[in-house]
């Protein structure tokens, strides 16, 4: 599907100074982002994370320093050319309201000179990729879409010319929490297919944990407080600033780092609405469980049926059982799964595939075991780290005492 995988990005002593302001907005940032990696810049507002991001495609020209993409120095090449190779998605989608969805997506491929037929194919492909039906959405205008749909088109436009690098500036900042969650899951799925290098700016630490391979916690003037994997930042925050940013409930946040696909998804007896009633009865009796999961015509979880439900509803499937409230995908975090299990009174949640079809269930027991294992492993890590810290500290104290001891003699 995608020809170009990610490129690595090197930022070298990158600074931005604005005239009339003695303090630089971004001060001497050096970091390397590996090809195919998702790196999140997270930090309080005004810390320069957006400025740093915009220097990568030179929407803001750096005052000094160097940017290399795949080893090529792009600090002084024509910025227009650079930007066509770097996808850019922003908050509130940034779609052009006077163009249709298809026209918006086609912009960059057209600019780099793709043939009309190739552009047309690509638009369909991109719409499909972000989960919008091409036939339905192709000719719509942005204002006819919901916030979440607009954001998907925004991502499709950014990826249309298949750039190796994708810059995302708080792209999900303006949508409601539920849509936001879906979009995040979607991005994770996309990234597993495409392996782009993604640089993503957010002020939401939970979002950073969920999406990032590595997180750069930035403090004012874009100073890097810690640049590490989410696990490492949660278990070993480098200093008070980082731990302040991580916030309370690190154990719960840890659940955001593991996904449903990492735990055991168990099979569960199911029947389909198309099955004759007798079959359903038999399965219920044979299942050995209290409930059975009823799937709709397209194989999606529909209702939980209990023994006796059918009797009470006088054999009518339409009235029997309780509707399935919530399902999770394999990409959902354990936190989402826990949430779903806690709210559903059956004590388990159905796991669905890409088109919403049933693939298995996760129950409370599985979750508790996984959480327990996770926390245990973290505790061990933390203890080890503590030990290391104490050793270095005692070495330091030792050196200091020696130093002090030496002073009077000098």
């Amino acid at each position: 599907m995608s020809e170009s995988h990610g490129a690595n990005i090197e930022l070298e002593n990158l600074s931005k100074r604005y005239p009339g302001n003695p303090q630089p907005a971004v001060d001497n940032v050096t970091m390397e982002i590996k090809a195919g990696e998702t790196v999140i810049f997270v930090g309080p507002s005004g810390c320069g994370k957006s400025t740093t991001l915009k220097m990568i495609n030179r929407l803001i020209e750096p005052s000094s320093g160097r940017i290399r993409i795949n080893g090529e120095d792009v600090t002084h090449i024509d910025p227009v050319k650079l930007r066509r190779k770097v996808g850019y998605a922003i908050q509130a989608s940034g779609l052009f309201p006077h163009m249709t969805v298809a026209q918006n997506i086609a912009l960059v491929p057209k600019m780099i000179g793709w043939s009309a037929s190739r552009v047309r194919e690509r638009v369909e492909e991109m719409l499909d990729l972000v989960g919008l039906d091409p036939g339905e959405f192709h000719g719509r205008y942005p204002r006819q879409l919901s916030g979440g749909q607009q954001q998907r088109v925004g991502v499709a436009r950014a990826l249309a010319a298949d750039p190796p690098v994708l810059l995302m500036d708080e792209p999900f900042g303006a949508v409601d929490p539920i849509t936001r969650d879906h979009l995040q899951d979607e991005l994770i799925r996309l990234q597993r297919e495409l392996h782009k290098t993604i640089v993503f700016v957010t002020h939401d630490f939970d979002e950073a944990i969920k999406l990032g391979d590595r997180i750069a916690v930035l403090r004012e003037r874009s100073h890097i407080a810690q640049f590490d994997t989410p696990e490492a930042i949660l278990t070993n925050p480098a200093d008070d600033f980082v731990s302040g940013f991580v916030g309370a409930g690190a154990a719960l946040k840890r659940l955001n780092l593991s996904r449903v696909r990492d735990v055991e998804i168990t099979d569960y007896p199911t029947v389909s609405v198309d099955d004759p009633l007798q079959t359903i009865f038999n399965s219920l009796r044979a299942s050995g469980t209290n409930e059975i999961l009823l799937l709709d015509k397209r194989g999606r979880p529909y209702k939980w049926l209990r023994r006796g439900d059918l009797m009470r509803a006088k054999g009518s499937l339409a009235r029997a059982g309780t509707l399935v409230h919530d399902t999770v995908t394999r990409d959902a975090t354990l936190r989402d799964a826990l949430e779903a299990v806690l709210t559903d009174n059956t004590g388990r949640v159905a796991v669905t595939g890409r088109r919403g079809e049933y693939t298995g269930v996760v129950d409370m027991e599985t979750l508790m075991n996984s959480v327990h294992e996770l926390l245990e492993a973290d505790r061990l890590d933390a203890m080890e780290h503590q030990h290391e810290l104490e050793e270095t500290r005692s070495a330091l104290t030792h050196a200091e005492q020696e130093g002090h001891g030496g002073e009077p003699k000098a």
Partner: protein
Amino acid sequence: MNFWEYLVNRHQQLLTDAYQHASAVFQCMVVATVLGVLIGVVTYRSEWAGNLATLVTSTILTIPSLAMIGLLIPIVGLGVAPTVVTLTLYGLLPIVRNSIVGLRGVDPTLVDAATGIGMSRLKRLVRIELPLAWPPILTGIRVSTQMLMGIAAIAAYASGPGLGNLIFRGIASLGSANALNQVLAGTLGIIVLALLFDAAYVLIGRLTISRGIRV
């Protein structure tokens, strides 16, 4: 001769006058639009240049049109030339002002997005900023046209073309048989033309404003 008989009798002359009136306004509008949008495009980015352009064009508008034509006669002579210059100058203000307001009103995040996906400055202007600013610009053009319809009548003072000739002739010979008919025919003619132009603008708006931003 009642008004109706007058119209039937002189329809040849009336149609010629009406045609010349419309043609003068139309041509001046084209020039004013091109100039006005151009001035807007050149100045909207800078605070002071934009304000200066608005100030200058609105100052021009405060000069009484009769005085303007009178002042132009010694410079460009009689006839078509002072008419064209006057109409174009008066037509500028609404277009310049609405161009500047429209272009400045384009959502900065969209401009940012356009630059971010690799559009050059010119491309951004042509593909994004002007289409988004087009509805207010078109409104400016519409207002200008309505205004020029009336001002063009004054052009007859400098022997210019158009329906103004009827009005001036009528006023000059008040009391004579056809004086009132002449003034009436000139005035009504201008009103009808103005309405026709306005209808044309509604149509142009339907055709040129993207469905995505139409209100």
